[in-house]
Structures are given as C-alpha cells and as structure tokens.
C-alpha cells in the first residue's frame, strides 16, 4: 500500500510542478525563509571549531531535530555551498552517542589539506553557519560488542574508531586499540582515548609513533592478538592494504575484518591483461550529456569523473571517493574498473559511479 501511495504522490507532484516532490518545486521559496534548506539533507549549525592537531580541525554541529541519529563509526556527507556550487565530502563522526543524545550535537574531525578544494573551506566556517549533512551511512560500526575485538587505526582513521570506543557504555569483552600516528602532537583524540584506557580495565591502548617505530614492528606486535577477534581497521589506503595482507597471511578470516576507507584511493594498476595494449593509456569514451555525445580520450589512470571534467563537462558529483553515489551514471556499453578494488565491471548497460571508475575499454556513458 505504502509504495503505491508514494508513487501516486510522486506522480501528483510531477503533474503539478514537474518535480518529483513539492519541496523541490517550492525550493526557491522555502530557501527564502529557511536558508540552507536542501531536499534530502538535514541542516546543521556550526557550534564550535578548534584545531585538534596542527592539521586536524574539529568541528561541532548542532543538528536538526529531524536527523535520525547514527551508529558510532558511521559517516555523513557534509555539503557546503561555495562560490555558487554545492560540494560535499564524507566525514566520520568522531563524537559520542551520549553527546548527540544530550545536546543534539555531533563532531567531525577533519584533516585539512591546504590547496585542496573542500577542506580549507571548513576553517572559514563561522559559528552559527548553516550547512547540510546527510543521514548517517556506512556499515562500519561495532557489530558484536560482546566479542573480543582488535581496533587498528592510523592517522585520521582514528575518528570513527574513537567514536565507537568512547560511545561504549557496557564493556563485555577485552578490547585493544593500536593507534599509529606521526608524532603525538599530530594524534587527534589521544587525550580522550588515554582517559578511557585509564578508567576502563578491559580496554588497552597501544600507541605507535611512525617517527620512531617502523610499521612492521607494530604489525608484528598485533598479529599474535588477531586470532579469533573481530577486527576494525581504518586508515590510509596503503596502510590498510598492508595490514589486511599481513592479517590474512597469518590466517585471520577475511570476514572478521571490518574496514572503512576514505581519502584518495590507490592509483590503480595498468590493465594490460585485459586489452593487451598496456602502453596505450587512454580510451575513447563517449559521454552523452543533455542528449548530445562528446568524444573524450579518457586516461586509464584517472577516474571518468576527472576525464569528463577535464573535457569541460560537468556531471553531478559529491564526495569524489565512491561514497555518496551522486555521480552515478548509466553506462551504455564498455567495461570499467573500480579504482578502489580493481574489480572489473560487466560489458553491458549498468550504473556506475564516475568518481571511482576508470576506463578499461571504449565506453559509452550517459551523464
């Protein structure tokens, strides 16, 4: 019954305003009264901002009452309006459930990269500025708190893990965290985690400073503990790949490893095995945009989103790392590869995310 009603309502809205929802038709009027209103998003007001480390900015937001909450470890898409355009990136929530329940606020710990498009804007946000956030998403959360667990974090990968650990009220099983950073002055959330370790005897915190300790030392230290534990892993792509490889070599089952990956994906491996001509680094790609085809030589080393933008096309986009699904397009024909995993797509018509797809063969894509 409900889907039918929904479809009827949608048809009614299409009839009335040629938009799938009345809120979209009325958007320009609604935004006059409530700036920052964006359909499908929630409003969040900046309520605090400080530098947690030299390059990690911690932002606190009071979120709209309609926002449905989160499971510690999940992330949101943060959307800003800058120079006339909406841009968004995913960020893990680093604050606790208790904070949200008592004050309706969440915190994000964002690594600011100077010269990047998005993160430097965060430092320009003033108190009380309204931004948009998505519903909490992702399946990186502490699934079985009753089982012994091993958490491994590196750099800004600590944010979702800190949220999980600091939100935990009832400790049932021993939990250890290996936290790797470059100098303790660059370790975000370290104070809170140390406090937790001192008051919760089931929780052990092991720190590893990459300035003094080689990566292999930490891996060797944690490997003996990894057996029969739930493993939660978050950090830079290279770090995660290494750890996962060592873990699986040591006989840890893949299904016990939970991970979250942000940040630039690894450059993908050239695809000589598929077409046999490895040195040819571009593929003829036809983007059909607004009805007309555009021929682009898309590099096999970059994403299709990059190729389309280089060519002056402007497909919709969001996080640019495969999280938000705003750049999903219809692929008519051809094969692409997932930058993150190296997985190959089929040859036929299907939907792909432009930001994490590289051309493998000639392509036809509807933007």
């Amino acid at each position, binding site marked *: 019954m409900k889907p039918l009603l929904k479809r009827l309502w949608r048809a009614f809205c*299409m*009839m*009335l305003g*040629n*938009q799938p929802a009345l809120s*979209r*038709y*009325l*958007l*320009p*009027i609604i*935004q*006059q009264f409530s700036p920052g209103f*964006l*359909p*499908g998003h929630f409003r969040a007001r900046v309520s605090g901002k400080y530098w947690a480390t030299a390059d990690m900015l911690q932002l606190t937001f009071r979120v709209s009452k309609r926002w449905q909450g989160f499971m510690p470890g999940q992330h949101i898409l943060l959307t800003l309006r800058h*120079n*006339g*355009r*909406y*841009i968004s990136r995913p960020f893990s929530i680093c604050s606790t459930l208790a904070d949200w329940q008592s004050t309706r606020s969440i915190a994000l710990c964002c690594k600011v990269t100077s010269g990047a498009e998005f993160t430097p804007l965060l430092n320009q946000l003033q108190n009380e500025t309204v931004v948009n956030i998505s519903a909490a998403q992702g399946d990186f959360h502490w699934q079985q708190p009753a089982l012994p667990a091993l958490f491994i974090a590196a750099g800004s990968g600590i944010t979702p893990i800190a949220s999980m650990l600091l939100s935990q009220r009832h400790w049932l099983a021993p939990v250890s965290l290996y936290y790797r950073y470059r100098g303790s002055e660059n370790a975000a959330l370290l104070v809170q985690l140390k406090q937790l370790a001192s008051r919760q005897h089931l929780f052990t915190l092991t720190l590893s400073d990459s300035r003094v300790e080689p990566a292999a030392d930490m891996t060797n230290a944690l490997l003996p503990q990894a057996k029969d534990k739930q493993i939660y892993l978050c950090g830079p792509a290279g770090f995660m790949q290494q750890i996962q490889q060592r873990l699986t070599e040591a006989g840890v089952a893949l299904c016990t490893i939970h991970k979250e990956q942000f940040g630039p994906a690894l450059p993908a491996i050239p695809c000589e095995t598929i077409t046999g001509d490895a040195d040819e680094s571009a593929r003829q790609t036809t983007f*059909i*945009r*607004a*009805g*007309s*085809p555009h021929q682009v030589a898309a590099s096999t080393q970059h994403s299709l989103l990059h190729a389309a933008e280089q060519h*002056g*096309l*402007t*497909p*919709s*986009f*969001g996080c640019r790392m495969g999280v938000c699904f*705003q750049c999903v397009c219809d692929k008519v024909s051809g094969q692409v590869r997932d930058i993150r995993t190296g997985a190959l797509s089929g040859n036929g018509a299907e939907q792909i995310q432009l930001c994490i797809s590289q051309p493998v063969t000639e392509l036809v894509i509807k*933007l």
Partner: protein
Amino acid sequence: MKLTIEQFSALEHELDTVKQQVKAQLGEQDARYIRRVLLVQRLSAISGRILLVLGFITPWLWLVGVLLLALGKILDNMEIGHNVLHGQYDWMNDPVLHSKRYEWDIACDAGSWQRTHNFEHHTYTNIIGKDRDFGYGLLRLSNDFRWRVRNLWQGGTYLLLSMLFQWGVSYHELAAQRVFAGKKKADRHSQVSDSALKKAFFSKGARQLIKDYLFFPLIAGPMWLWVLSGNLLANLIRNLWTSTVIFCGHFTKDVHVFTAAQCENESRGQWYYRQMLGSSNFTGPTWLHILTGHLSCQIEHHLFPDIPARHYPAMAKQVQAIAAKYAIPYNTGSFVRQYSTVFGRIMRYSLPGGGKAVKAL
C-alpha cells in the same frame, strides 16, 4: 571556402578564448541570478493561478492572473528550462537546476528535447536534411526544398504551429522517427525505441493537460471556466511568444543554410563559422533578453550553448568584433525588423521558385 584553414583555426582559438574567459568567472553571481529567476518564476506562476480564481472580484484580476501565469511559463521554458537543459548550470551541482533532472512546464518531454534540440539541431544547425528544425518538416523556407501544393497555405500552417507550438515541439522527435505514420528512414538511428518515445510523449502530454484543464479547474469549483480559459490563454501566449522568438533565431532573411556534403569532416573552427552564419540575433532591452531566455543572442547561444545565458549580451560584443575581423556576416537587427523578414520568408516560399538559401562555405 571563404576563409583559409589557418583563418579557421585562428577563429576557433579566438572564440575558445572568449568562452574560457567567461567560464573561468562563473560562480556565486550566476548562481544567485538563476535562483532569483527561479524564485520569480515560481512566484508568478503561483500568484497567477491564484488570481485566476479571484476573477469573480473583478475580471481585471483574472487578466493579471493570465499574464502572470504566462510569464511564469515563459520564464520556466526560456530562461530556466531551455538553458538548464543545455547544462548551463550543471556546475552548480544543484538538486533542481541540473540538466539530468530538470523537467519543464511544457508538453515536450525534457529527454526528447535534449535529443532533438541539444544534439540534432545544435550539431547540424541549418544543414538541409539533417536539421529538422529548419522548417520543422512543415514549412518550405528555401528553394532547396521542392515546392508542394500544401506550401500554398503554409501561412496558415505557420499560424497554427505557433498557436500549438508546445505540441509541435513535443511531437517533433516522433515525427522524425515516423513513430505513428510514414515510412521509416533508413539513415535515421535513434537512441530510444519507438515505444519509449510514445510513452514519454503521452505521459508528459497527459500530465500537462490534466494540470491545466482538469486539476486546477476542478479545485476552482464554480470558477472552473475562468481558470480553464485562463490556463488556455496563458498557454497560448507562451506558445506564440516562444515560437516567434525561435523563428527569429534561424529563419531570418540572411541566415545561411548548408548541405551535408559541405560540412563533412569540418573542424571546430568551421563549426563555429557555420553556427555564426546559421543564426541571427535581435536587439532589445534587458527584460526582452530575459523573456527570450537570451535566445535574442542566438548566435552566441549557438557558439556557446553551455555557457550561462546571462553572459551572451556581453559576449555578443566580442563575437561581433571577431566576426568583423574575419569579414563574417553578423546577422542582427531590431526585433520587428528580424521578425518581418521571417514572415516574408514564409510567405515568399509558399509560392514556387525563390532563391536557394544554401551558400558556399
């Protein structure tokens, strides 16, 4: 060829520079502008529909309502819809103003429009046999088409087409594909099946008919006839206006027409050249430009279809200077002058003979 290969590539470079300069400065001002137009459009459409019902107080309110609703439809179709569907505002990443998502208040389905207009018309502008917008398969506009008896009354056909313009536009692709009648053309390939075309045509058309002639009259209760006739009139005003503006863009006396053979393997510079010769502008105040969706700067629109249209009047000055430099005719004039040549053309070619419009490239 009037220009040399070197001149064509120099022309290409100069026009590309004009485009890049504008593209580099797109930002907050453009976003604010189009959002304000969208706000005015919504307010005029909504207030227009309310005033239609208030006609029982005084018919003058009804009349203002008709004009406001017509304004809403014209803004939606021209300055917003046409331009958004060209992808002019895709860079904003906006939930509403994106070429992939926008749907407009007209009988024509947005996807069908993008295929016939954005692709066919803008790529093959004024190429006989390839650009069906040259005469819409209904009007004989040059001696490159054989005269038929039905051309005798094409003045009347033109008037009818103008009055029902939104339906002409919406049926355009189905006519080209011979979906309902006629023999399929072997050289036409479509991205979509006939059944998909039919479905889009009927569902979009039905939505528009239900809205204007069933839903709003019904909820107006005793004022239903006022609302129904008001909607009919507003649609008529929009149809006449859009058709008039569009006819002034390509059918004025001095526009050039081309053959498919002339345009084979053309460079981008040559494509630019053809767009300049195949289009015509008309002059007027800012409000007129906005009401035409800046199609009053048809030449600039054809050169730079995905640049936000509010920049066209400023770009026109640069383009006109470039045209003068290469001795390329730049077809512009007052609205009245341009339209009278369009009307003259329709009348002249309703009779046999007349000059060929195809010019040597």
